[in-house]
């Protein structure tokens, strides 16, 4: 990854069952039920990699994508920089159908140190 200020977001994947995580219990005793489908997750990761982003392994139900701000704004959402500052989700409209079927959300997870 090179050029410009870096952005990084989490790509949240749907469970292999196809259900939404919106109402799911996201705890250790239930997390296994939310595991995404391996082939679909790999396809989604590959799609982001082809667009020049650095892609992490899947952990839990998400993987990270990292790249320059311009890359995020060109490939995903023109408002990426401002969304990153305020927190929120990126549009998934640019994703092809086979990827958007797997991707539930692309979200920044902004936080702050607790001094």
């Amino acid at each position, binding site marked *: 990854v090179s050029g410009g200020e*870096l*952005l*990084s*977001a*989490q790509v*949240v994947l749907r469970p*292999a069952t196809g259900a939404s*995580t*919106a109402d799911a219990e*996201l*705890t*250790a*005793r*239930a*997390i*296994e039920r*939310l*595991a*995404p*489908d*391996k*082939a679909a*997750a790999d396809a989604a990761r590959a799609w982001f990699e082809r667009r020049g982003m*650095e892609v*992490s*392994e*899947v*952990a*839990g*139900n*998400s993987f*990270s*994508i*990292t790249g320059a701000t311009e890359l995020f704004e060109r490939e995903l959402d023109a408002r990426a920089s401002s969304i*990153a500052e305020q*927190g*929120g*989700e990126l549009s998934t409209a640019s994703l092809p159908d086979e990827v958007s079927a797997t991707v*539930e*959300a692309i*979200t*920044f*997870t*902004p*936080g*702050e*140190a*607790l*001094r």
Partner: protein
Amino acid sequence: MARARKNDRRDFPKVVFAQASPRSIGPNSLFETDAEVTHDSVADFTSEAGLPEEASARLTDAGFEVLQVSPVTINIAAPATVYERVFETELYTDERPALKPRRRRDTAAVIDCVDTAMSGLVDPSRSALADVLEGIAIEEPAYPLENAFAPLKEYWHLRVPGDVSLGLNADRVHRAGITGRGVKVVMTDSGWYRHPYFVERGYRATDPVLGPGAANPAGDESGHGTGESANVFAAAPDVDFTMVKVSFVNTTGGFNAGAALNPHVMSNSWTVRGGEGPGMSAAHRAAAAAVAAAVVRGIVVAFAAGNGQFGFPGQHPDVIAAGGVYLEANGNMRASSYASGFVSRIFPGRNVPDLSGLVGLVPSAAYIMLPVQAGDQIDRATSGGSHPARDETTSRDGWAAFSGTSAACPQVAGVCALLKQACPRLRPSDVRDILKRTARDVTTGRNAMGEQAAPGYDLATGAGLVDAHRAVLMARVRCLGPDESALAGPSAVVGVRGDAASPRFGEPVMPPSVPAPSGALAAEEVAALEAYLTGEEENR
């Protein structure tokens, strides 16, 4: 002393800084080699009234930026070519020995002048400024030299490692040989700077790992991660420590990068925004799933409860949530007015914190003197002033007094490491149970959210202040009983479906290779011993 010019290097920075000395009022120039400058003689090196101002004006006209005018010198800045033009000379750069931070012997580029004997001196005698200046001293490279010893301050505060270790009741555990050896602790935070405090104590820390979107692995621009990490070592001095530097735009990515290192314990002193609920955003869902996936692999995950916020994932049901207790100079304990404690509006039935570490009071929680990278954000922000608003240190000394539940969390995480050494097979839920049952109850004070401490569990401090000694005793007793973790079996493994060979995710974290006896006592005997340790026996 003229120097050979054919090999001179000219690797100048864009701006060269210097101290220009207006002509001194006394018999000697500031730059005469036998001129001794002391408090007795410094008046001789000041100038006639009005001369510094005139010199400053003419330096400005000549193309220099005047940064500061003192009674003895004028601080100036300009490109090297301006010096050469104005003073009709030639500059060059030379690599010379230098002692850099952490006593590292290296070389540094020093700017010098070809036609003077004194290093770094520019002679203005051939220039149009000869009537107002007697010499120009080019600044030499300076490096922050943090001290391994914390500065002494008169207000009540804790010093690491000793006071924090004592406050956690960890000293006796350390002397018994339980120091966190063989236990891997990962902290996710703003970064980690290899401060002399860590180096000279011989703490074991790998180079920091970058989380997604983070940069500059060797530096900690904030100082938060560096400082708070000292709390881990105070509790467990022999852990194998790794910092994952997090981009605070993608905290979950940073957390996952830490979990991918397969630690036994993770310490996380941050919060995702919006933890007050009631619902969860996509960001919260991603963070919650990441935490759950780490815990199900056997990683003990500690989070700060918050400093007046609803900490998230500090309220996740699977984490150990660390609140705050203030330990007074006389040994009394009370709830920290700086720390959070609340009923989760996101996870029904979840009360935060589970227990507490050592945290200061409002307004600034300037309570634990911690090592930071000299001149970083915290070093500057906390410096000067007077306690309790500020910490009374200087802005570039590499030390700052702060705490918050950011300090409590690594303290608790360090104690978790002690428990994992004492009984490697403990599951995350076992560790939390032991910590809560052995904590010292705190019955006075209110936390940042107005919760009143009272006998027994409360939202002000949870179960009270962590007690490493009693917790390790209980861990050892539990390790004598049947190995219930074996019952967990395959359910302790989670991963991407269809990814049977995943090496990074889906594998349970193995405990450190410390032999632990098991099966010497029946479960009932263990329960009776634990009840005896906690005093529950007396209340039956």
